[in-house]
């Protein structure tokens, strides 16, 4: 991952994404100003052939985006731009649903259909992110890599990994500020232990993500993505639960920003297949190899 790209993304998202922007996007307003900034910076082309950056950089930008809950369909835009010529705003549909299709110029399906003429009926996921139901009219077939679903799943892994880091930071900050029984709640061992578990899940997610990114273009890619999506999905559930417990009732309010992150975790762990499906796929591959190849699988894939 190129540090410079990561720093640029961090700066832009930190400057332009706040609670008001998140609430506005959730109410259905596309964040035009933010999109303009992203385009001006060239971030929307990271990972595309003409940009000189790599796929690892693309996933890295998404990790930073996850840290800020960026209310743009960045995963879809970046992957589409890495595969097609950049012609406006292309979103990606899976199972007939695509983020921000209502304002997109093109819809690409994970099965390789591209369309400029489509209907989009607004819809949303658990986090209130746009997930529009699309009906495509004129479609053309495009050649896509066979592992596109895995690439999209890795995008969700990247977003979740960043998001987990953020809720860890929020929970630590809250625990050191909030006082009960005359001291910060971070002084209570039960709270410390919960935060230690949360930190463990965030670190595990980071490592699962790294392993998958390191395997881009290798034969083990599909397995690593399966392991990462399964493991990080599990981490998301554990970590969000603890972050809320630490925040008390305040974290259950709409006014507090914690839910922008935790609801995304709950949504993203289901998108591009929930843990159980990736576990089945991975388990089936391992079983097919047989008992005496389990270790080979773990280390070759590792």
């Amino acid at each position, binding site marked *: 991952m190129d540090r410079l790209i990561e720093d640029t993304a961090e700066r832009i998202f930190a400057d332009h994404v706040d609670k008001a922007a998140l609430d506005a996007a959730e109410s259905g307003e596309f964040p035009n100003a933010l999109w303009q900034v992203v385009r001006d910076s060239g971030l929307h082309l990271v990972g595309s052939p003409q940009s000189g950056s790599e796929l690892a950089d693309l996933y890295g930008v998404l990790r930073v985006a996850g840290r800020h809950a960026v209310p743009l369909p960045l995963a879809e835009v970046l992957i589409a731009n890495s595969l097609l010529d950049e012609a406006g705003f292309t979103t990606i549909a899976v199972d007939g649903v695509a983020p921000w299709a209502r304002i997109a110029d093109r819809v690409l399906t994970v099965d390789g259909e591209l369309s400029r003429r489509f209907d989009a009926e607004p819809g949303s996921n658990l986090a209130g992110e746009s997930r529009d139901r699309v009906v495509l009219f004129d479609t053309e077939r495009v050649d896509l890599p066979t592992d596109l679903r895995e690439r999209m799943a890795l995008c969700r892994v990247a977003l979740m990994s960043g998001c987990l880091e953020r809720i860890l930071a929020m929970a630590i900050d809250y625990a050191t500020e909030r006082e009960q029984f005359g001291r910060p709640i971070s002084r209570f061992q039960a709270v410390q*232990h919960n935060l*230690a578990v949360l930190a463990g899940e965030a*670190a595990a997610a980071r490592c699962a993500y790294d392993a998958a990114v390191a395997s881009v273009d290798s034969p083990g890619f599909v397995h690593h993505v399966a*392991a990462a999506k399964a*493991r990080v999905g599990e981490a998301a559930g554990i970590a969000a639960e603890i972050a809320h417990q630490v925040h008390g009732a305040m974290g259950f309010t709409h006014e507090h920003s914690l839910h922008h992150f935790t609801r995304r975790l709950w949504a993203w762990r289901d998108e591009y297949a929930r843990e159980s499906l990736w576990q089945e796929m991975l388990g089936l591959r*391992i079983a097919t190899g047989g008992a005496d190849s389990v270790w080979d699988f773990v*280390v070759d894939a590792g």
Partner: protein
Amino acid sequence: MFTGLEFEAVGLPPEAEALRGEVREFTSKELPADYWPNADFNEGHSPDFSRKLGERGWIGMTWPKRFGGGERTFFERYVVTEELLAAGAPVSAHWIADRQSGPLLLNYGTEAQCRRYLPRIARGECYFSIGMSEPNSGSDLASVRTRAERVRDGWIVNGTKIWTTDAQRNHYIIALVRTSPPSDDRHAGLSQLLIDLYADGVTVRPIRNLAGGEDFNEVVFEDCLVPDDGVVGEPGNGWIQVTSELGYERSGPERFLSAFRVLVEFVRAVGNDPRRDEAALIGRLASHLMTLRRMSISVAGMLQQGGNPAVESALVKSLGNDFEKLVGELVRLQAPPGHPGLERCLRQTLLHAPSFTLRGGTREILRGVIARGLGLR
């Protein structure tokens, strides 16, 4: 923004991967065809096997050549240790000496101590035990009461160590003892002594565990004379030294592979056309295992760079031990009947599971270490 604990993205370099085949060839040659793999690094004490590993240069791999080491990287050592564990090889004889006593001597010992012990450890001939816990000092290690009093030619040691793994089979113990009376600074006045387990004044009594095995012991010191050259490092510096061992002790693959055989035998039992829920269980456990391995390799990278990854190690061990327990509990619920191999592994894992989150620092203590790393205490 605080982004959590840093686990740098590192993979194994090619020179480390290159060792994998060699180790496999070695284990398939040295272990009998009907060998039933050990579940754990603590199971299987074989001086014969350890000596053969020593001949191959697979003990003390990272140490300087002049002390019998191989001047290899921590990544190379990683591959050798994980392959031995995956094969269930009998490694417990040399394990602790290789993992932490040797590195401790290298970091704090004298030239003479290094010359005297390291080459023998590296040859697979000389085995060490860890003398930290006492009847009244477990998690609160700084409260140890075993004391050493200065005499003309050394130190007279009195006190009791307990839960000392393999003390009845090993040659030496590195004991944490009090060399000056307790003061306001609880961590002051502690020292590490290297003691011959066969010396006068040392009595070793095996303690039977709930699974029927006798791996750990009580070690009693009664007016045991330890010569001056038995002091490791500076007298009074024991606390810093003992905590520096923990990065080595806690981050290795042995901290998440104790239930690995259960996974293997479960895969054998369900065959290559598993039900969906069986496949999902295999996949779930594999996703944890692959992630833990990645984390553990990342810590090997920190050791390679000369760091002291105490917090990161605590995290790997804590997640790894929880995983080891999860394997037994989940596979149990779906284990098909009529598979003696699986049954045998499951029994072994379920009976040993309580120790996973105790030995080497309890889960609660590890979480405390992590919380400190997060700046919470």
